[in-house]
């Protein structure tokens, strides 16, 4: 019955060692390739569909039994967790053996029997094998599913979820899958307290009836057993399993993101960022691309000799380990994931290195050495895996469930060996995306987000349950009970009264900014109601650097001797702008104002007021809760789907002609910050119509 065959190993290595005297400066050459034996399990099938694989191995007096239910993935949806609760209940007694007696007997035999939602695994000394097989079969066919156990498992599950509540890695793994597949796909959904609470005992029973069926069931028995005995035992224990087929529902195929982006999850307790650079790939074990893809991934991030590890750990010391992986699945796409846990400070730099390595393996052919090394690693681990007798069973099971040719594993090494550098590049380009990467980062926003924002990759924010959310660094607002009219009145009062403001026709401001450039930049800003303004930026000994001039109808922009007439949107924007106390104009010109809440600014608590222009554009103005003064303005620009905020903080208010004017203005755009300090501000003097032409 047992078929054995031999395959020559290590076609890759040729060479012999017959040195009497050692020369330790030379790396020893391998000896002749060991001959390996790839046994095949004996098999039989029951009438109800259960397929049985038996591997006899008498080296140790033990037996492993595994039951695999190869059912199609199933969305648990609002009852996510039903299979987990079920797994906690099954294996605790049967309809004819009480829970205590069952657990006591398994423990007494020194054995273990563990069930999951898709099968079971048992380990026993061979002398107790017949009894353990019987207990496992009885547990599978006649489980005791009681209300009491159900409640207990539910409670434990909910409590268990809490232990992971603040775990950065748990949140990261959950979000990485949920974002890749979507939460309505079996591979993307996750268990939460709410979904566990929705589960009823009836759901558990239905789950059992639907999925614990023999049609796609495989029983593998490996160890110190005799085939004939196993056959009799399995027949007597499993024949009464009723014929049934598990549901097979199809789900939509998830897609990659349209453009490379960062998906950020804030975990304020994180001391490391979890980085996962991922995209979806469709590959089955039986695909011709499977082997080249294994090799490509091995070179990129397969282990301690791969590029990601050598770069991020051995060269840069960013992480304890950086790896990539590809899976395989006969039904749905799987994920290609390159990942590492890195300290907060190097989160952005690590993202850059990941992208660089992925680009490199796509754009450049790997070296012959890289390829040789990757092949050797696979050949070695294939050979060494044969030490474990369960490997034979696993290979045979894969052939059955993954629809592989019978000689798949006999030709495994030959297939590995046939991969070329061209193959590696072809599959790298096909499966590792450059422009459709989802970079999921779970970490501490206050420490890592500013660096990520500077990378120029669009960022989207999610909470730890994969729901879209706001940028966590946008300061939280609290709700308040004050109208916009009251806020504006308070403002006018604070600066000296509405009448004083109305009386201001022109403002002249002169100041400088230090630190934005290697030299001080001098500012000269002249404004006149309603919308005339000229801003001149210059530097000592360099003349005018930049000038923007607008006379109420037309204007121009000038920089480095180049003059450009304002037109289109820019012109419209200038026309609509009110450089002197815009608060005076809001109502009359149809602006809509609303209070967003109170925010903590560096200058203290402030009312956040949303100002919506007649054409629907939102800006924000912050008025001091105590002082009433305008402390900050905020403008949001959309760039490539990324929102970039531009803020101007106003401080150091001083009275000029009875009106309070800010003498310091600090503008922030992206990573750039410019602080302008005004040395001179004049009202209704020093500005004439001629200045705007």
């Amino acid at each position, binding site marked *: 019955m047992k078929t054995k065959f031999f395959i020559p190993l290590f076609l890759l290595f040729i060479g012999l060692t017959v040195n009497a005297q050692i020369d330790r400066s030379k790396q020893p050459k391998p000896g002749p390739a060991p001959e390996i034996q790839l046994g095949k399990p004996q098999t039989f099938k029951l009438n109800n569909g259960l397929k049985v694989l038996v591997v006899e191995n008498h080296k140790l007096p033990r037996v492993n039994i595994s039951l695999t239910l190869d059912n199609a993935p199933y969305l648990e949806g609002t009852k996510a967790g039903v299979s987990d609760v079920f797994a906690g209940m099954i294996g605790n007694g049967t309809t004819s053996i009480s829970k205590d007696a069952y657990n*006591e007997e398994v423990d007494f035999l020194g054995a273990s029997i563990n069930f999951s939602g898709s099968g079971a695994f048992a380990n026993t000394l061979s002398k107790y094998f017949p009894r353990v097989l019987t207990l496992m079969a009885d547990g599978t066919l006649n489980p005791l599913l009681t209300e009491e156990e159900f409640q207990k498992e539910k409670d434990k599950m909910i409590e268990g979820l809490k232990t992971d509540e603040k775990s950065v890695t748990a949140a990261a793994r959950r979000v990485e899958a949920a974002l890749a597949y979507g939460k309505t796909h079996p591979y993307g959904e996750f268990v939460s307290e709410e979904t566990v609470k929705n589960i009823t005992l009836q759901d558990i029973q239905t789950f059992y009836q639907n999925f614990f069926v023999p049609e796609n069931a495989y029983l593998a028995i490996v160890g110190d057993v005799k085939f004939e005995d196993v056959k009799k035992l399995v027949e007597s224990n499993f024949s009464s399993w009723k014929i049934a087929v598990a549901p097979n529902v199809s789900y939509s195929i998830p897609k990659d993101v349209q453009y490379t982006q960062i998906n950020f999850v804030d975990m304020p307790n994180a001391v490391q960022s979890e980085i996962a650079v991922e995209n979806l790939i469709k590959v089955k074990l039986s695909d011709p691309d499977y082997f080249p893809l294994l090799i490509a991934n091995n070179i990129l991030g397969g282990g301690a000799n791969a590029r990601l590890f050598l770069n991020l750990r051995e060269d840069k010391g960013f992480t304890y380990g950086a790896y990539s992986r590809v899976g395989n699945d006969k039904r749905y796409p799987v994920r290609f994931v390159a990942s590492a846990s890195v300290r907060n400070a190097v989160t952005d730099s690590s993202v850059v290195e990941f992208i660089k390595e992925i680009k490199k393996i796509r754009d450049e052919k790997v070296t012959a050495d890289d390829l040789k090394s990757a092949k050797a690693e696979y050949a070695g681990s294939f050979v060494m895996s044969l030490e474990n007798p369960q490997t034979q069973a696993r290979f045979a099971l894969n052939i059955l469930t993954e629809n592989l040719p019978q000689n798949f594993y006999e030709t495994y090494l030959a297939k590995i060996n046939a991969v070329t550098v061209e193959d590696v590049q072809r599959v790298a380009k096909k499966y590792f995306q450059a422009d459709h990467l989802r970079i999921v980062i779970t970490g501490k926003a206050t420490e890592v987000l500013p660096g990520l924002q500077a990378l120029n990759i669009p960022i989207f924010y999610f909470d730890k349950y994969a729901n879209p959310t706001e940028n966590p660094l946008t300061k939280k607002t609290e709700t308040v009970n004050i109208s916009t009219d009251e806020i504006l009145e308070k403002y006018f009062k604070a600066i000296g009264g509405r009448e004083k403001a109305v009386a201001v026709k022109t403002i002249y401001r002169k100041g400088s900014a230090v630190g934005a450039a290697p030299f001080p930049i001098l500012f000269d800003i002249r404004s006149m109601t309603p919308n005339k303004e000229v801003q001149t930026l210059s530097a000592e000994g360099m003349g005018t650097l930049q000038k923007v001039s607008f006379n109420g109808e037309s204007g121009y922009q000038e920089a480095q001797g180049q003059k450009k007439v304002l037109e289109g949107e820019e012109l419209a924007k200038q026309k609509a702008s009110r450089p002197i106390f815009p608060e005076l104009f809001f109502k009359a010109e149809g602006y809509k104002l609303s209070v967003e809440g109170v925010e903590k600014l560096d200058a203290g608590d402030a009312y956040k007021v949303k100002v919506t222009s007649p054409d629907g554009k939102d800006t924000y103005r912050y008025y001091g809760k105590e002082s009433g003064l305008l402390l900050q303005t905020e403008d949001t620009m959309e760039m490539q789907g990324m929102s970039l905020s531009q803020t101007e903080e106003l401080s150091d208010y001083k009275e000029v002609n009875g009106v309070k004017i800010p003498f310091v203005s600090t503008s922030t755009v992206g990573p750039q910050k410019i602080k302008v300090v005004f040395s001179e501000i004049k009202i209704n003097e020093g500005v004439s119509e001629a200045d705007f032409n």
Partner: protein
Amino acid sequence: MKKIVLALTLMLCGLTFYAQQVKFEEYDLPNGLHVILHQDNSAPVVATTVMYHVGAKDENPDRTGFAHFFEHLLFEGTENIGRGEWFKIVSNNGGQNNATTSDDRTYYYEVFPSNNLELGLWMESERMLHPIINQIGVDTQNEVVKEEKRLRVDNQPYGKILEVVKKDIFKKHPYRWTTIGSMDHLDAATLDEFLAFNKKYYVPNNAILVVAGNIEVDKTKKMIADYFGSIPQGEKIVKNFPTEDPITQTINSKATDPNIQIPAIITAYRTPSFKTRDARVLDMISTYLSDGKSSVLYKKLVDEKKMALQVLAINLSQEDYSTYIVFGLPMGGTTLDQIVAEIDVEIQKIQTDLISENDYQKLQNKFENQFVNSNASIAGIAGNLATFHMLYGDTNLINTEIEIYRSITREEIRDVAKKYLNANQRLVLEYLPESK
């Protein structure tokens, strides 16, 4: 349902119990290197491993984490293996390798297809004879080790339990600090200190070489003599660790963890070395208490009373002392005190009454199963041989330790519980969520 895995792995204590009948041969080279060979030609695999009798407890108290750090350094290269080449050579030849450090020893291993035996011996002899230890390596590995600590300790729920327990249980003995050690100490360490550490501890007379798997014994012996025979012997190492005073009053302690939401309660007792018979009795007691669904603590606290989400009794055995730890996660409104009280009731029962004949037989069956499974792979056998020789002083325990367990009586179980597991001899640690 996900299980909570405690970060106890850092300690890597000897959880090797016993083995199947394993044939081996052992001898010393003239330079003091102890060699153990185990031949098993049933699979085309060979393991070449070296264990050095140096661990975290050999560190200067101002340089904790040194031994583990050093383990990282010894992958940086040798006079004949360039920097960054180590992993490449292993992979290029189809092998796997790694190393681990505990408080008691440091262990390096390669597993290759058996035609690469000589390569494995060459690499380990290179590491013992002339590793390159330089500033570049120190600087790089300094960052890597810090990341390892963040990954395994700082970012993990319940990650700091062991650190706190050790600090409270050991006052004099160097088991009082963790294997991963202090990052400040590592920052302060100089290259000269690393070189001195190497000279003192990484010598053949402080090491064991184990070669196991598909080998020809005579040829292997010759290769070992060729590659390791010329490595100079080091100075004799004298170990003299302080003895702890007995704990006579309960130590109450508290610690907080920002990564948790459910508190944990830990009771811990200082118990004797894993070499002692008593330590093995304590192994049986922890199995009795918390291994399997019918174990007393699981059945009572988790299953029947629903007071705990999880409860574990672990005998963390080491060369000089062991630490017996009972760990519980409360469920619902249960207080930490209530959990301790319930656990104490069960411990008191063991101290007063004999466990049932049935439970005793159950323990024997469980230990026999573990014994059979503990020597299931070549790599596992190599590790067990080295550990039993170096830390237990008797290589053959790989075959005979099961006899010790078999000979333990119900009366001994009662007496040992009475001797060590008393309320006044322990630490009670409340491990709490960090309040904001």
